């Protein structure tokens, strides 16, 4: 089998085996897996609301997936999408709440998105600087930065910005809200899917061009594949470490904008629900390719939302097991595929 077939075959195989294992777990919990899968399929893709929910989750997943995938092109493993997401979300909510209500919508949205991306990028850049300057392994740095981000946002929320007796910040100004598809076009009724999904597809395309069709990407991938050779070729590998982390963090920030500006309209404790970690699986399943990422995010989006809808039949704990198992299988099989290649 040539390597091209393998690249498609391995993710498919990992998905199928994940389904099989899930079916086994569901059977063990005393339910009929076929019925559960049917219900999931129906709830996710059977209605426009369900599709909207999947699109909304998929959008965040694409962005946190990119947050992992872009640094991965330079062989950096960004485990910190969750922390970058948190910082971005907090920044978006704060900016949105502080902007004057008179600001035109486009400007208000742009400012909020910008602040979310900047916050995410800075948070990721910290790990990049630690790596370049002191040689700190980026995996350790980003994990630690996740904890710190949790601490900072938690502290700021409870001690300074939470509306009394709630766990969320003040609402953002109406002009900073990204319209939902429902309100803008009437599609995907009542679902949180919003126009940032379009932006996301555009960004994924843009990054695909940047990585695979620009001189910048040529240098960046070279720096990832063979850093010493890159140095001989006059490429500044350290610069690429920093920029890739920056771009990754900015993507996580954009993902936060989707949640805060498009759906919640404020920052709430625990609102990300660990979706930043799912981004790792999304990126690995897609082989860190910006366009395949759309597909793998779609799959994980279905799984995330589908899992919620079958809550009445399958306890949440069982579903957590299934989701984690799926991610593990996907990662293991992708790694195996790399080795075979």
């Amino acid at each position, binding site marked *: 089998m040539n390597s091209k077939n393998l690249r498609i075959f391995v993710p498919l195989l990992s998905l199928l085996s994940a389904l099989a294992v899930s079916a086994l777990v569901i059977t063990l919990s005393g339910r009929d897996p076929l019925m559960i899968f049917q219900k999931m399929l129906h709830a996710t893709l059977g209605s426009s609301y369900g599709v909207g929910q999947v699109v909304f989750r998929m959008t965040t997943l694409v962005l946190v997936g990119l947050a992992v995938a872009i640094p991965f092109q330079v062989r950096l493993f960004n485990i910190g999408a969750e922390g970058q997401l948190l910082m971005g979300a907090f920044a978006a909510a704060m900016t949105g709440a502080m902007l004057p209500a008179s600001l035109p919508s486009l400007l208000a949205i742009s400012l909020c998105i910008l602040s979310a991306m900047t916050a995410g990028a800075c948070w990721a850049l910290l790990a990049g600087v630690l790596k370049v300057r002191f040689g700190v392994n980026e995996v350790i740095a980003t994990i630690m930065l996740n904890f710190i981000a949790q601490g900072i946002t938690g502290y700021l929320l409870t001690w300074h910005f939470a509306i009394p007796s709630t766990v969320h910040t003040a609402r953002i100004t109406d002009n900073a809200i990204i319209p939902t598809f429902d309100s803008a076009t009437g599609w995907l009724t009542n679902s949180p899917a919003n126009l940032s999904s379009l932006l996301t597809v555009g960004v994924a395309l843009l990054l695909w*061009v940047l990585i695979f069709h620009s001189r910048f990407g*040529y240098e960046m*991938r*070279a720096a990832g*594949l063979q850093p010493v*050779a*890159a*140095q*001989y*070729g006059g490429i500044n590998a350290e610069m690429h470490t920093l920029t890739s982390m920056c771009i990754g963090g900015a993507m996580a920030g954009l993902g936060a904008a989707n949640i805060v500006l498009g759906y919640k309209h404020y920052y709430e404790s625990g609102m990300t629900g660990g979706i930043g970690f799912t981004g790792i699986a999304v990126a690995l399943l897609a082989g860190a390719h910006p366009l395949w990422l759309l597909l793998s995010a779609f799959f994980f989006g279905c799984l995330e939302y589908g899992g919620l809808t079958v809550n009445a039949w399958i306890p949440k704990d069982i579903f957590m097991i299934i989701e984690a198992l799926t991610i593990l299988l996907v990662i293991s099989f992708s790694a195996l595929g790399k080795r075979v290649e």
Partner: protein
Amino acid sequence: MGIAIRLSVVSKTFGSFAANSNISLSIEEGTIHALVGENGAGKSTLTKIIYGMHQPTSGEVVIQGKAVRFASPRDAIEAGIGMVHQHFMLVPELSVAENIILGHEQTWLFGSLPLKSAKALILKNSEAYGLAVNPDALVASLSIGEQQRVEILKLLFRKASIMIFDEPTAVLTPSETERLFVTLRSLRNRGKTVILITHKLDEVLAVADTVSVMRKGEIVGTVPASSVTKPELARMMVGRSVLLRVTNPPASPGETILNINRLRFCTSQGEERLRDLTLKIRAGEIYGIAGVEGNGQSELLQTLWGLAPEGSVISGEAKLKGQSLLRKKPAEIALMGLSHTPENRLRHAVILEYTIAENLLFGRHREAAFHQGIGFNSHTIKSYTNTMISDFDIRCISPERQPLSSLSGGNQQKVVLARELNRPGISLLILAQPARGVDIGAIETIHKKIIEARKSGMAILLVSSELEEIIALSTRIGCIYKGSIRHEFSQEEVSLKREAEHEFEKEIGLHIT
């Protein structure tokens, strides 16, 4: 004498690729049997089959009369087969004796090591085979030649009767090589069977009893070494006649291009690697630096290409047409008109995963001629790629799709040379080990291109550990020893002495050790 190893119609395929096909070979006990062939001819696959690292797809392996099927090298070691790898398998932090008994301790897990009896045996063996080495010394403190002796002692300790040597002389100085040959002969005289894998034909003729030549996964011939000449062997290997030494017409050097004056290099640990190194290279000449690896060549190359490790202290002068090269970055140095093919091609000069076309661009991707928008101009690149491929005879199928890793070492090197020789506006070309890991056939092309570049008026600095290559190409030769040029042969001397190559090699050998 019996037959140590008999292979009958052994084949090994990887997917659809036949690395070895229908190999039948008998290796007699108590002989030195050389296995030669170009890179990718299947030598290493064959030895891996004998050593149990690969299992044959079909065919039979008979070791000392017994049909075997090794599952792993452990089985092969048990059957009395040992191998000295090109990269030594030693633990630098342990002593010689500890390394030798490693994996063969003959004691229970927590018992004390039988070092005393082991040492006695090691001393006995080292006397018998001329393998002088102190059993108490730390391996880290040994020279490469001594480390190789430890590897051989390891095999003797395990009572191996068949010993495989994979390119054993690649890392040795000329005198160490001579010494290794003495050892190989004494091993043979005491009934051991030696299998020597090499691509250096002179060595084969000097030490082997029998030679098997491989080409494209097959044995094309097995002949007694005494009945064959070097050109004949080369022809068997490549399948056509090859020019073993490129014609090197007299040079008429022009103005000085590179001027290195009292260059010193101290590592961050304070070790002096270059000591007042002084040399000049003129336009239209090749200055060959001959020397044993580790005498400052790497540091000189790093300094000239702006990649000296952080913390190293450099003083003195290195000027390209009057402009200093020191403390500049590779990209700036390239712009000044210097081109460089690094010693370690795989690590420094190419991106194996990139396609051939992308690699032809690597390091030159900043040249505006290749640009279009934020990306590259595919049209220009295509015509550039095609020109390079036909000019340098790069053997490939689809340069835009094929990753560089799918090429043989020789073709990879041609890609690097094609790219570096054609940089616009270069006046100095630095070539480090241009023929390392390259087939005889490809060496011919590469050497011709180097001479052509010299004729076109480039100044060329050639660093090579192969004296043959230095002598064949250089206009002048500098012998480097412990960080300075110890002796320089003038243009007249070189062209005169080139005719008596063997004598010349010996003379150079005196200046570099």
